[in-house]
């Protein structure tokens, strides 16, 4: 098993750093899947994460100038590593003005992902900062739990409003209730509702637009005004929104009534899918 990659372009490095910062906000521990074409940050819906799952994918050739990997075997040409997300984002943070950044799988006292940054120095010599991020190699038998989640057949699919606005609304709502109802219809309307004994608060977003659903039959049988709703834990929604530091290129919300909320974001060339389950 081998992995070595290098980034020389500052824009690519900043992009990768932003992705890593986002992942650090979304999941304390996550799985990094390395395959010949892609890198994935994965959070699977185990109990520890409270049912939340995440799938983030980026094409390696958009980031790395050099990329070599050798998986577990020829048939299973992938590497699955578990790491603390904050370690990676902290390591990348030191690379803000780097000339080059190298990442490789190493074994120093314990398996590590070594991030080696070559910084520009005032004199001719370069300064090197190395971070050894401890990792856990995930054995083959657990890979089946870490596959790309299937996109559910949603009842409603809608474009999201500005995430910053949503975040400030949900932040205030969190002080009133732990549960939130997210509902939307095929008329471009999305509501965030909280309800307690004393008060009900609803924020309405209108004219959001709905992406065209692939299966026309679903949309035809559904009245455009009908709301599909899910009761979710407000903190999980807030955690997702807090992780979004950049305005996404595309942001879609898919709702499966009383089951799941599925956020599908595209941040330039990086795709992020985030699933929040309904409260039981």
């Amino acid at each position, binding site marked *: 098993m081998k992995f070595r990659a290098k980034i020389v372009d500052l824009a690519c490095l900043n992009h990768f750093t932003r992705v890593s910062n986002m992942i650090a906000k979304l999941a304390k521990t996550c799985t990094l899947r390395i395959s010949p074409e892609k890198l994935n940050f994965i959070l699977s819906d185990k109990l520890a994460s409270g049912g939340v799952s995440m799938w983030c994918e980026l094409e390696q050739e958009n980031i790395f100038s050099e990329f070599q990997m050798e998986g577990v075997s020829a048939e299973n040409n992938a590497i699955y590593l578990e790491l603390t997300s904050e370690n990676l984002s902290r*390591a990348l943070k*030191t690379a803000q003005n780097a000339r080059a950044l190298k990442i*490789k799988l190493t*074994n120093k006292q314990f398996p590590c992902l070594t991030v080696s940054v070559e910084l520009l120095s005032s*004199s001719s010599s370069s300064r090197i900062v*190395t971070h*050894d991020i401890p990792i856990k190699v995930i*054995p083959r038998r657990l890979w089946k739990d870490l596959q790309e989640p299937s996109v559910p057949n949603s009842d409603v699919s809608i474009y999201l409003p500005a995430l910053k606005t949503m975040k400030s609304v949900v932040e205030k709502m969190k002080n009133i209730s732990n549960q939130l109802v997210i509902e939307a219809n095929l008329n471009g309307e999305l509501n965030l509702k909280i309800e307690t004994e004393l008060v009900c608060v609803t924020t309405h977003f209108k004219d959001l637009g709905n992406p065209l659903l692939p299966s026309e039959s679903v949309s035809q049988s559904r009245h455009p005004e009908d709301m599909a709703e899910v009761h979710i834990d407000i903190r999980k929604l807030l955690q997702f929104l807090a992780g979004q530091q950049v305005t996404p290129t595309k942001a879609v919300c898919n709702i499966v009534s009383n089951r799941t909320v599925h956020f599908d974001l595209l941040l330039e060339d990086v795709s992020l899918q985030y699933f929040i389950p309904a409260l039981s």
Partner: protein
Amino acid sequence: MSYPAQSFLSVFRSLAMVEKTVEKCCISLSSSNSHLVVQLHCKYGVKKTHNLSFQDCESLQAVFNPALCPHLLRAPARVLADAVLSFPPALTEVTLGIGHGRRVILRSYQEEADSTNKVMVTETSIGEEDFLQLHAPEGTAVTFCLKEFRGLLSFAESANLPLTVHFDVPGRPVIFTIEDSLLDSHFVLATLLEQNPCSQDLCSPSPRQPMPQKQAHSIPHLDDFTNDDIDCYMIAMETTVGSEGSRAQPSTSLPPVSQPSHDLAPASEEEEEAEPSTVPGTPPPKKFRSLFFGSILDPVHSTQDPSPVLAEDSDGEG
């Protein structure tokens, strides 16, 4: 005399205000009520008087001599300040040493107890060219408190002065000196006596993991990407059943982890002069620090925290 530093600092809290409004500052000792009087004469006839109470205390003078330290390095404070930026704010200790190729290395220090926790290790390597002076052989290294180091670095950086580091073997104090025409300051920090294998690797010229089929060791961080094989190891994978057909790589043998000696060498004469309250045989408190300021106009006086010192105590409490 001694008084809480915070009280004294609070007089000069707003530097901007001080620069704009204060014309003169008079510091005097009031004999009548044993106060330190700081008077700020400001613009428009405004006079601010601060009375700071103090306590008389025993004056202890630690004896240390930077000239006795065999190793030295000197650099603009900014070089070292930039280097410590990469360390996490919570890190307590850092190891400073000379590595392969005469590069100065700063590495986060992990106590043996933390090795099960597997914390990220960060290391910064600075080329010899960035230093004004470097008189230390490859392989020397000392470990000391990072928090104090950061503090004295920020002072040196704000004064825009170079910092000289005098050090010796692990266990003997490290002395940081900052000098200019107005002041002469010495910061003495205790260093850890034991060097765990991680720190030893820092400066060892041999590869960390001996692998017979690997090529000869090259300077780890400066080679081209294609020559990085030395650092690329097979990782042992946990597999439950061999029949899965996966290629289980044998783990490379880890270097033997020697039990760090927590007992101070009984031969060390400094230990006998430590405070009676110290339990013999325990490692020196790592938070020890001592700050000595001397103006070139007056002979060097010092006040000292009542904690064990590794520098010889002129009072000889033994």
